[in-house]
Each structure stands twice: as structure tokens, then as C-alpha cells.
């Protein structure tokens, strides 16, 4: 793990911390993470994508309890991953925290919180970002 691994994630800080996505200036579709080109308007949207901060509210589309973790996530096992449909339209994948197995259902309303996602070992950069909790 090099000292520069943090740089790859630093570029997306605005999106990771503040759920900043973007919006097509032509058709109004909201995207998260932000896209260079609108998936509907294609070429017409070039140069017309506007920064758009999402509220962080939405509902659970599906979820799972992960028992076999990715390295670095062992201490959180079992952790909940959920696909969340944000109110503005886009869906994203995130962990759900501060809830037990019975409290997550398809359709549960959720909102985002700021948490530690991981770190590059004990001496490396710490990654922060969004997770979701039930309303």
C-alpha cells in the first residue's frame, strides 16, 4: 500500500463527504456519482452538467448481511450493504449502520450519516464517507 493510495480517493471528497453529484442541464436527470456525460442526452449534455448536492434521503431497494468480508472490514462482520434509491432518482451502494437485522427491509426509509469507511493500515490515510441509517 503506497502513500499515494489516498490521492485516488481525494479527488472524490466532495462526492464522498457531501453527496455531491450532478444534474443534466438539458433533461434534469440527477446522477450520483457525478458523470461527465448524461446517459440520456449524450453529446448534447457536454458542458451542461451542473453540480448538484443530494439530500441523502431515500429508501432501501435491497440489502445483504456480509459474513465473508473484504480485507479491512473484518471488525465490522457481519455488516449490512444496501442498495439505496435516493429521493432525487439515482441509486447507490452503501453500508447501513446503527440497526439490527430486523430493522432493514426493502422499502425502509433511510438517511445518510458521515462515518469512517476504512483506512490504509494503522499508519496510512483514513477514508471517510457516507453510510445510511434507518429514519
Amino acid at each position, binding site marked *: 500500500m503506497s502513500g499515494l493510495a489516498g490521492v485516488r480517493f481525494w479527488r472524490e471528497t466532495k462526492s464522498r463527504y457531501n453527496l455531491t453529484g450532478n444534474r443534466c442541464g438539458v433533461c434534469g436527470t440527477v446522477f450520483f456519482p457525478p458523470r461527465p456525460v448524461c446517459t440520456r442526452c449524450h453529446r448534447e449534455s457536454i458542458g451542461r452538467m451542473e453540480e448538484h448536492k443530494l439530500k441523502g434521503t431515500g429508501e432501501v431497494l435491497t440489502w445483504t448481511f456480509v459474513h465473508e468480508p473484504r480485507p479491512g472490514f473484518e471488525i465490522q462482520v457481519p455488516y449490512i450493504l444496501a442498495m439505496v434509491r435516493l429521493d432525487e432518482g439515482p441509486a447507490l451502494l452503501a453500508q447501513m449502520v446503527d440497526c439490527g437485522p430486523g430493522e432493514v427491509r426493502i422499502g425502509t426509509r433511510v438517511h445518510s450519516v458521515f462515518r469512517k469507511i476504512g483506512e490504509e493500515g494503522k499508519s496510512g490515510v483514513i477514508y*471517510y464517507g457516507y453510510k445510511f441509517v434507518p429514519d
Partner: protein
Amino acid sequence: MVVGIVSYGACIPRYRISSEDIARVWGQNPPLIGKQLGVFSKSVPSSDEDVVTLAVEAARTAMRRSPVAGDMVNAVYVGSESHPYAVKPTAGIVAEAIGATPNLTAADFEFACKAGTAAMQSCMGLVGSGMMDYGMAIGADTSQGAPGDALEYSASAGAAAILVGKKNLIATIEHTCSYTTDTPDFWRREGQIYPQHGGRFTGAPAYFKHILACGRDLMKAVSTGPGDYKYAIFHQPNGKFPLRVAEELGFKPEQVRPGLLAPEIGNTYSAAVPLGLAAVLDIAVPGDRIFVTAYGSGAGSDAFDITVVEAINSMDRTGPSAVRSMIERKVMIDYATYAKLRGKITMGGASR
């Protein structure tokens, strides 16, 4: 120029461990320990919570309930003794997370349990001198006590943010003063995980001396007595000291209790007084006068004379953001889970 509080926010993690469970593991007296210390349970951060995340949540709540936009906050200071980085300020990450970057000054503060109030004083100076309109002061900690040590019962986690300004105030700060010395009552050397303390030396020559002196200085400066205040908030390393120092200064227990959270959540160090203040602001009404004296080992006290004003009634102080809700919203864990979450268990794999 009048300087005061524009908004505030708090964050207390959900997990709690009872003093009884800790005592059971270390062969101390489970039923007695809570009463002895005045601490019955303490807050424990989850594995994905740290001073940065707690500070961000508290700051975001303060921003959400205020008419102030992120880019109007020109200072962010975070006081803690458990910043995740020894070098790389928590304040910078918080600033990014509240949309205050890049036009602001930021830094991390350390002064044991009074780093949060020291941050408040700095913000007051920046605002009061006309250098800026709004500054955010945060006290946040995820402090650790050595296993089996007396401090393990109380060292806990929490954060509170105070947005300081001169416009849109919900409370004015009439006066602040401090009392600072070089006193070796409690310290932690660089690189050490757990602090050390001077046992009973942390009482009279440390906590009591500074709070008494500073508190009296404050009341002298503004010509008040204990009876002028509705509430009195003191640093709370346990549930006993604040009541005792209050009594010595002439305050009554009813004035102290609303701001005394240690019995339920332990000592949140740099967040202790800010959280006590937040709890009081949640229930205060316009005209209430609040006496605050913080204490940080090493040692020093910061005192504040605060008066709540009319605008507090337009702030939403109910719901999940209220300090009382956060205290009630708890999940009890056992010592093994607590040890795992707090990294007290030596894990396998390469250590770097």
C-alpha cells in the same frame, strides 16, 4: 460588540457499557462502583466512529438548524485529545464536510478536557474583533482509559459543536475568562495509548482549584452570584465532582443536574462541557442565564457567562438531534464487544 451562540449540535454514539460490567471483569465491586463514581454507564464509539465523524455530525446539526451557509463559516477549530491523526487536522475534514472550504482558517486544539471551550474562546475573539462573522468551535473525543484503571469507567465518546457569531444569536456570551497553570494531574505522552494520572492529586490541587478560582473570577467580573443563574455547567470527569464544586461555589444541585450527563454517558472529555451546554440549551427559555466552567488537566479552566435570548424559540430543538434523545437512544454492549470496538484486543496480521 456582542458575541454569542448562533447554533449548536451534538453527537453521542449509541453503544453503552455499564460500570457494573467493567467492574466485573476487573474484580472490583460491581454494585458499588457506579455509586462511588457517580457514573453508571458510558458511551462507546462504533468501529466506524471517531473524533472526525462525531465532530462532523455535531457540526452538521449546528449548520442545519442555523440560517448560516457553509461558506459563511470562516473558522473551524476542533478540540480533542483523541484526534485520529497526530498530524493532519480534524478541523480540515470537518470544514470540507460542512462546505466551509476553502476560505477559512482551521486548526486542532488540545488542552485535555477543555480543548472545546478553548476553541470557543478563539472563535469569540475572531468574531468579536470583527475579523469574521461566524466561527465553529467543536469539542469531540473518543477517549480511552487503561483497562482496569479508574478512568476506564468514565472515558467515553461524544461531540458538541457551538457556532459562534454576532448576528442571529440564540444566546449571548457576556463574558469569558480563564485560569491556567502548569499542573501535572493527568497527561499522555506522544505515542502512548493510555493517559496517566496523579490519583487523588487530580482533586483539590487540580479540578477544584482551577474551577473555584476561575468561577469566582467570572462572577466577580460580571458582578453576579450563584443565585443569578438558572443553570450551572461544570466539567464532569465523574458524577460527583461537579456537585461538590457547585456546592462550594454556592450553587444548588437543581442548577447542575440538567447539564450533568456523566452519570449516563461518562466523561466525554473535550465534549463534556459543550455537551452539557447543548443539553441545557435544548430546554432553556429566553432570559435564562447559564454559568459554565470547564476544566482541562495540565491545567486550566475556562468560564462563560451566557444569557439565552428570544431567537432560541425559533430553533427546532426536538427530535433525534436533542441531547436527551441521543442519551436515551442506546444499545448496551458487553466488555468483550467493548474491547473489540476500542481496539484493546491485539489483532493478527502484520502491524505497520
